[in-house]
């Protein structure tokens, strides 16, 4: 899932250096981001939200539109903002044999 100027994937061993700081920035600002944007997908590049949308694809499209024309390729990260669920522990109850691919 990429756009003409946004690369969300990278080759093995070539993680863009901004990725580590951007994920850390999101984790440290999660409450503020949730308060500002609500539950949604955000695209973050160099500690700035560059795209927002109800889905990953929509947030990417928004980020592409928000990029200034002079900006070339960027390598942001994606985060799905959700309010914490107090009952987040899950377990398997049923497995249905089905081949999709």
């Amino acid at each position: 899932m990429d756009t003409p100027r946004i690369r969300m994937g990278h080759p093995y061993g070539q993680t863009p250096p901004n990725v580590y700081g951007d994920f850390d920035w999101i984790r440290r600002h999660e409450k503020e981001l949730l308060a500002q944007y609500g539950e949604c997908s955000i695209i973050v590049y160099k500690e700035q939200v560059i795209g927002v949308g109800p889905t990953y694809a929509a947030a990417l499209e928004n980020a592409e539109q928000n990029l200034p024309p002079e900006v070339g390729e960027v390598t942001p990260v994606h985060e799905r903002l959700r309010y914490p669920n107090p009952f987040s522990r899950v377990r398997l109850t049923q497995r249905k044999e089905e081949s999709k691919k």
Partner: protein
Amino acid sequence: MTRLHLRTYIAPGAAELFCNVLRQDGSYERLAATVDTGAQISMLPDDLLDLVVYREYTTITIEQAGIAQQAFQGAEALVTITLEDEFGNITEPFEIQTWFADTNRSLVGFLGVLDRAVLHIDMPQRSGWLEIDA
């Protein structure tokens, strides 16, 4: 063995590393994943199913522990991942079984990951590492 530095957080407490999942175009989707010693299997957001390479797909029903009425549909499949830290330590690509569910959090659980790793977390020092044969 690859030793990966964990990022530790408080309020809420968590230990995280970076998990890259092989995509259909041959590149890796980057995720921050929480190390979850209560998870029997790793879990990823289900919107990644359109993006990543997977096989042996099976639909499953998952329930939130202790709340039988809160069952929801998910999927189980094999995906290829690498684990990485911010200091450039990275595993070779390896395949794990994972659940895909309607969740915003990526979790690294036991099957295929923690069951072959040494985990050390020192919360007072805000440090930790995961050493894995991969």
